[in-house]
């Protein structure tokens, strides 16, 4: 019964979202206030019914209702309950449900937390989000119904969740990532609403900025979790593969990074208006493209599920409609919203412009590398793959180019600045950064030029920030007063830029300094890796809730002192018989020790073992957490709420006037 209720709720949600997409938009067009006022109610209605539907699906998973085809193929009665719940989105149909649920959440959030938004704008924004909802809910209902039953022929037990997915990573990575992906739909909806209205003022940027920052923060966290998950779960210590699906999440992030910076210029100075609108369209289109790449199975990837072509076709058509429709609208309306403000070349504006160009080019090169195999295949020129060397070769120089500008950014002034002032402000940071870049790599022999470059760039970045904070405190009457005057928006920028510096250092240091050994070890063998002695003590049999495993014990010592006792496993899952490596990691702020088991070799109890030493690997994830924290901090800024008060007092004044 539950699945039918869920299916029914999904159909109701579809009807409501269809109304949301049409009625308020019609109201905004004809100036019908009643129709427009329906928008928030409809948005909340969609959330309620998608929520009910999602709840029914989750309960089918939790109660082991194997008459539902999806549960039968992706769950198992032995699965721990938390994974039964997470299994809801560990498959194609369920992950679409999650998409729909999160879209409904964002739509309802816009409806609830935008009291200052004029009804006309609000109804347009919600209508656009409703239209996106129509696309996804119909996709779910038409091509991938999660509630399809297996009647008759209900299996006794389910086929189990892919062992790779039986991990806390599955519980949090997809929801966070989708929060980010789908969150860009808000920025997109605001952009389309502005184009529809033909008016794009500074308040538009102020409305969409906090939403974009939140979405970007979630996306940063989602990508970071995906990387961390791959690191400990795939069992070979990699943390970024330039896999098409990783790229699919990374491209909206890159475009989103450009967007939040260009929104800053639009908000503060009324600049780059039509450009910002285009970026908003671009970022969300890339989110949709990502969904298409993941869900259609056109590319070989870790994330591809078995798929059927109809689904790929559906998303492709939807993507074409969204991109084509919004770009057409843009072509007609953009001239009306373009800005007429100038700025000097030496100014914060041009630095933000540099940011935009670098990130846009980075996005395009990643996009090109990701789609290149598809293009070549489509032209019938054979099947090629573009590997990590391509992406590293184009991406690394771009980031190197970015950081010098990033260091000046916070110090610079809007509208027009002075090179002499920059020189005097940044003299000390330059000198100290060069010293840091030269000396820090001395701590780790042999001297590595790439790490030196990374330290130079990131310390330049951090010192530039410090210099600016110092300048602000110095100019205030007292340091405490100065600290008070640092707005949350400014602090958010500080934290996020600091995070970027941490991330850069971590990525470069771990890529350059990692020591990775794959070798054959028998119980009792000892192997030295980067000054650590790894002793393979023994292998024992252990049993988990739904698997059995060979568990190795590896004792790691340094200079005779035991540092860690690691217990990697080779698991065999009972339901499917599939084998999975569970790596054991001794984490640390400055280094990770990583051990994973390969397969048994010969009959003497020897195993293939992977022993890794990974310095500063945590820094890149820490950096991503900082970036997300920065984004979340920035939305506390009063300027996003002050306007609300202004509008309200404005209304009051209007009332008094009347």
């Amino acid at each position: 019964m539950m699945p039918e209720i869920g299916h029914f709720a999904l159909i109701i949600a579809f009807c409501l979202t269809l109304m949301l997409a049409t009625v308020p938009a019609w109201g905004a067009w004809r100036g019908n206030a009643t129709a427009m006022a329906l928008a928030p109610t409809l948005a909340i209605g969609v959330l309620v019914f998608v929520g009910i539907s999602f709840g029914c699906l989750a309960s089918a998973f939790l109660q082991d209702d194997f008459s539902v085809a999806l549960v039968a193929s992706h769950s198992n009665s032995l699965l721990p309950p938390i994974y039964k719940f997470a299994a809801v989105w560990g498959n194609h149909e369920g992950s679409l449900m999650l998409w729909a649920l999160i879209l409904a959440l964002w739509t309802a959030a816009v409806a609830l937390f935008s009291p200052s938004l004029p009804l006309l704008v609000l109804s347009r924004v919600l209508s656009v989000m409703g239209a996106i909802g129509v696309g996804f809910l119909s996709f779910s209902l038409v091509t991938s119904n999660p509630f399809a039953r297996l009647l008759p022929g209900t299996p006794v037990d389910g086929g189990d969740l892919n062992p790779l997915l039986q991990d806390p990573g599955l519980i949090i990575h997809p929801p966070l990532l989708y929060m980010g992906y789908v969150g860009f739909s808000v920025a997109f909806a605001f952009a389309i609403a502005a184009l529809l209205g033909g008016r794009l003022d500074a308040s538009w940027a102020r409305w969409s900025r906090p939403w974009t920052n939140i979405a970007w923060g979630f996306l940063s966290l989602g990508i970071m979790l995906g990387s961390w998950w791959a690191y400990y779960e795939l069992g070979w210590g990699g943390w970024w593969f330039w896999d098409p699906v990783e790229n699919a999440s990374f491209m909206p992030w890159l475009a989103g990074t450009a967007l939040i910076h260009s929104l800053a210029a639009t908000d503060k100075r009324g600049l780059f208006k039509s450009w910002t609108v285009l970026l908003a369209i671009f970022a969300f289109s890339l989110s949709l493209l990502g969904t298409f790449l993941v869900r259609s199975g056109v590319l070989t990837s870790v994330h591809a599920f078995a798929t059927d072509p109809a689904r790929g076709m559906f998303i492709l058509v939807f993507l074409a409609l969204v991109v084509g429709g919004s770009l057409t609208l843009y072509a007609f309306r953009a001239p009306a919203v373009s800005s007429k403000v100038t700025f000097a070349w030496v100014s914060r504006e041009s630095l933000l412009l540099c940011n935009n160009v670098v990130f846009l080019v980075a996005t395009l090169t990643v996009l090109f590398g990701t789609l290149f195999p598809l293009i070549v295949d489509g032209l019938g020129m054979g099947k090629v793959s573009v590997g990590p060397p391509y992406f590293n070769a184009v991406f690394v120089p771009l980031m190197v180019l970015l950081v010098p500008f990033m260091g000046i950014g916070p110090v610079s002034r809007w509208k027009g600045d002075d090179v002499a002032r920059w020189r005097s402000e940044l003299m000390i940071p330059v000198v100290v950064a060069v010293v840091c870049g030269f000396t820090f790599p001395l701590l780790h022999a042999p001297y590595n030029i790439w790490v030196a470059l990374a330290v130079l760039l990131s310390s330049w970045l951090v010192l530039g920030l410090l210099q600016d904070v110092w300048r602000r405190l110095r100019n205030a009457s007292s340091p405490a007063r100065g600290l008070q005057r640092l707005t949350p928006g400014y602090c958010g920028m500080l934290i996020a830029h600091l995070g970027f510096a941490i991330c850069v250092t971590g990525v470069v240091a771990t890529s350059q300094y990692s020591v990775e050994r794959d070798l054959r070890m028998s119980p009792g063998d000892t192997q030295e890796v980067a000054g650590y002695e790894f002793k393979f003590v023994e292998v024992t049999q252990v049993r988990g809730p739904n698997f059995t495993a060979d568990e190795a014990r590896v004792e790691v010592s340094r200079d005779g002192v035991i540092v860690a006792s690691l217990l990697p496993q080779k698991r065999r899952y009972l339901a499917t018989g599939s084998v999975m490596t569970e790596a054991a990691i001794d984490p640390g702020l400055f280094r990770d020790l990583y051990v994973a088991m390969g397969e048994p070799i010969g009959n003497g109890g020897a195993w293939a073992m992977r022993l890794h030493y990974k310095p500063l690997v945590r820094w890149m994830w820490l950096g991503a957490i900082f970036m997300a924290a920065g984004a979340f901090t920035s939305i506390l800024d009063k300027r996003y709420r002050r306007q609300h008060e202004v509008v309200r007092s404005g209304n009051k004044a209007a009332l008094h006037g009347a």
Partner: protein
Amino acid sequence: MHPVRKQRLYLVLFVALFSSVAVGLVSYALRGNINLFYPPADVASGKAPTGQSIRVGGMVEEGSVQRADDSLEVSFMLTDYQASVPVVYIGILPDLFGEEQGAVASGVLDSEGVLQATEILAKHDENYMPPEVAYALENSGYDKKGKTK
């Protein structure tokens, strides 16, 4: 010229300059870093180049996987049931690698026609078949169990 237009002109020039640098980087990076895919039948008939990085995908032949006792060397045959390619790999294989399963090996073909693989990709779940392997099998006219379609 109007100052706004002038600024716009500089902007366009700047963007054009920057994008041509990017295009240069991209084409340079692409030149050495793309791997062509060959089905085993093409490799056996000599269509695949030697001494250059390529990818070969197919089913791992039953009974062909041999592991050395004293090192991490593994050898096996990749087949599309028309022809087979011997593959040698030193390292740890992915968990879902197995006989009669699809796999994609990337590496360099040596003069004896053995693929010296540097990376082995296996499927990631039970129902998923790498598109390249599906393509190779389609070309050879066999299904994944080795029966003619």
